[in-house]
C-alpha cells in the first residue's frame, strides 16, 4: 500500500525560539484512519498545518501521495490544498453568509469548476453526510454537529484523498462527537480517504486504526 503522508526528520522552530516539532518521521498509508494525540502544546496542530501546506517546516521534508511538497512554491501549496488535502476545524469555520450547499461548494469556486458541477457535487456530499434537507440553511441555523458535517463535506468536495481534522469534536457533546466519528469512519471505509484526526480524547482514538502520540514535539515511540 502506498504512502499518503510521509515526513522525514521534520522540525519546526518558531521565530521566538520555541521548538514545536523535532525530527518527526512518520508514514501514513492511503486509507488509514489515524489519531494524532498528545497534550496541549505537544505540536499536533503544527504538524497538521505543515502537512496541509498552511505552515512550513524549518527542516525536513513532507511527501503527499509520493510527491515531495515544495514549501517555497506557492502554486505547489495552493495545488496541495485544492486537490490533495481537506481541512476540518474544531470551530467548524463555515462562511457565515453562505448556506450549507454553498459552503460545501465554496472550495470549487477557486478550481475552475462550473456552477452546475459545483452544485451537483455539493448536493451529493450533503446527501452523504445526511444533510440534504438542510442544504439551504445558513450556518447559524444549524446545530454544531450539522455544521461539522457540512465542514466534512466541504473537506471532501475537491476529491481530496487526505482529510486533516483538527479537534473536530472539540466543540460537540459526546453523542454528537460519536456521530461525527462514525461519519468520518464510514467515509474513510467507503471512499478510502485517509484521515488524520488531532484529538486529546483518548476514548475517540479507539475508533482509529492507529494512534500517533506526540510529546514535546517528538513522536512517542
Amino acid at each position, binding site marked *: 500500500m502506498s504512502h499518503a503522508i510521509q515526513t522525514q526528520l521534520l522540525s519546526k522552530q518558531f521565530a521566538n525560539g520555541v521548538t514545536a516539532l523535532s525530527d518527526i518521521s512518520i508514514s501514513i498509508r492511503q486509507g488509514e484512519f489515524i489519531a494524532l494525540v498528545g497534550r496541549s502544546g505537544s505540536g499536533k496542530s503544527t504538524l497538521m*498545518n505543515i502537512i*496541509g501546506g*498552511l*505552515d512550513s517546516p524549518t527542516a525536513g521534508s513532507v511527501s503527499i501521495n509520493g510527491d515531495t511538497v515544495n514549501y517555497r512554491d*506557492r*502554486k505547489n501549496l*495552493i495545488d496541495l*490544498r*485544492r*486537490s490533495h488535502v*481537506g*481541512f476540518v*476545524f474544531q470551530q467548524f*469555520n463555515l*462562511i*457565515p*453568509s*453562505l448556506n450549507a450547499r454553498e459552503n460545501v461548494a*465554496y*472550495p470549487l*469556486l*477557486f*478550481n*475552475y469548476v*462550473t*456552477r452546475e458541477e459545483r452544485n451537483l457535487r455539493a448536493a451529493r456530499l450533503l446527501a452523504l453526510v445526511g444533510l440534504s434537507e438542510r442544504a439551504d440553511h445558513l450556518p447559524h441555523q444549524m446545530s454544531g454537529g450539522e455544521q461539522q458535517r457540512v465542514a466534512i463535506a*466541504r473537506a471532501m468536495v*475537491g476529491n481530496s484523498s487526505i482529510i486533516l481534522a483538527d479537534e473536530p469534536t472539540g466543540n460537540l457533546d459526546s453523542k454528537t462527537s460519536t456521530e461525527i466519528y462514525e461519519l468520518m469512519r464510514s467515509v474513510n471505509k467507503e471512499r478510502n480517504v485517509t484521515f488524520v484526526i488531532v484529538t486529546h480524547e483518548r476514548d475517540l482514538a479507539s475508533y482509529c486504526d492507529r494512534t500517533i502520540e506526540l510529546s514535546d514535539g517528538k513522536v512517542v515511540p
Partner: protein
Amino acid sequence: MIAKEMDFLKMSARQLNAKRLRVALTVLGIAVGVAAVIGIFALSDGIRYQAIETIKAQADLTLIEIHPRTSDGITQLITDTKVDALRETPHVTAVAPAFMDSYSTKKQTFLQIVAVRGGEIDKVLNLKYTSGRAFEPNASEVVFGAELKDRLQHNEGIRVGDVFTALVREYDANGMPTDRQVPLTLTGALGDRDDKFDRYVLIDMTTASRIRNEQKGYDTVFVRVDDPDNVFPVVDEISAQGLAAQGAFEQIRAVNQFMDAILIVFMIFGLFALFVGALMITTTMITSVYERTREIGITMAIGASEADVIRLVLYECLLIGIIGGIVGIILGFLFTVVLNTVGKPFIIARMGVEISSIFGNEIAKLSPGMVAAGMAIAMVFSIGAGLYPAIKATRLNPVEAIRGMT
C-alpha cells in the same frame, strides 16, 4: 473564465449584502463625490453652451478680420498672394482685402475710412442700404455706416446725395500738418448692423489710393466663413500663414477659457469629495478584512490563491463603485433638474430677465459622456481604494487567521 468572474462577483455581492448599512453609507460617500463632479460639469457645460449659443445668435460669428502679425520682430504683411491663398482656404466663401485711413469733416468729426473693392466687401458683409446706393469704382463716392450717417446728418446736415468736404491730413517735409480738402459724394447709407461698420466710411480702394497719391498695402482682410462650426479650422489655417485673426469667435474662445478656469477650481472640490468617498471605501474594506480575518484564512486554507483573495476584495469595491456611480449619476441628474427648474426664476429674481435670457432653458446640461465619465471615475476610485485592504488580506497568515490571532 467569464463564468468564474461572475461567480466571484456574486460572492462579493453576498458579502456586501451581509453588511448593508455600512455599504449604503460608503456608497453614499462615493455617490456624493460622483454627483459633485457630474453636477459641476453639467453646470459649467450648461453655462458654456448657453453663453456660446448667445454669442452665436447675437454676433456675426462667421466674419473674421485678418491683420498682419508681428512676431520676433518680423511682420507678416498681407500680400495679394496671401489673399489668394485665403480665397482657396476651405469653408471660406468670400474675401475682401482692405486698408484703413482716416479723414475728418470740416467740423472735425473723425471719419474712419475703410478702403475696399465694392463687389468684394458686399459679398463678405452682405451690405444692406437704407438709402442710396453703393459707391462706384474709382469715383469720389463714399458710403456711411448707420450710426455715422445719423450723427453727421444731425450735426453737420450731410445727407445721402450731398457732396461734402473731407479733410485729409498730410505732413510736409518739416513734419507740419496740413489739411487738404477733398470733395466726396455720400451715395448711400448702410442699415443698422450692430457692429463697427455702423461707424465706418466705405470707399473704393482705387479712390482712396488716389486721394493719398500712393498705393497702400492691405491693413486687413475681411473673410466670410460658410458655417460657425468651421470658423476655428479657418482661424487655425490663417494662423498657420503667420497672420492674426480677430472676430466674434474670440468671445467663444474667451468663454471657453473662462469656463475651463472655473471648471478646474470647481473640480478640485469635486475630486476632494470623491477622495473622501474613496477613503470611506478603504475604511469600510479594511474593517471588513479585519472582521473577516478568520474567513479569509479559511478561504486560503481551502485552496484560494492570493490572487483569488485580492479578486474577492476588489470585486466588493468595484460593486460599491458601480452602485455609488449609479446613485451619484441619479443625484447629479436630479441636481440638474432642480437647477433648471428652480434656478431660472432665481436668476430672474436676482439679476433680471436680461441676464436670465443668457441661460435659455437649460442652466445645467448633462451629457452621455459625463454619465460615462462619472461611472468610470467611481469605478477607478473604488478599485484604487480597495487595493490596500486587498493586499493586506493576502498578507494574513492562514494559520493565525483561522485561530483568530491576527
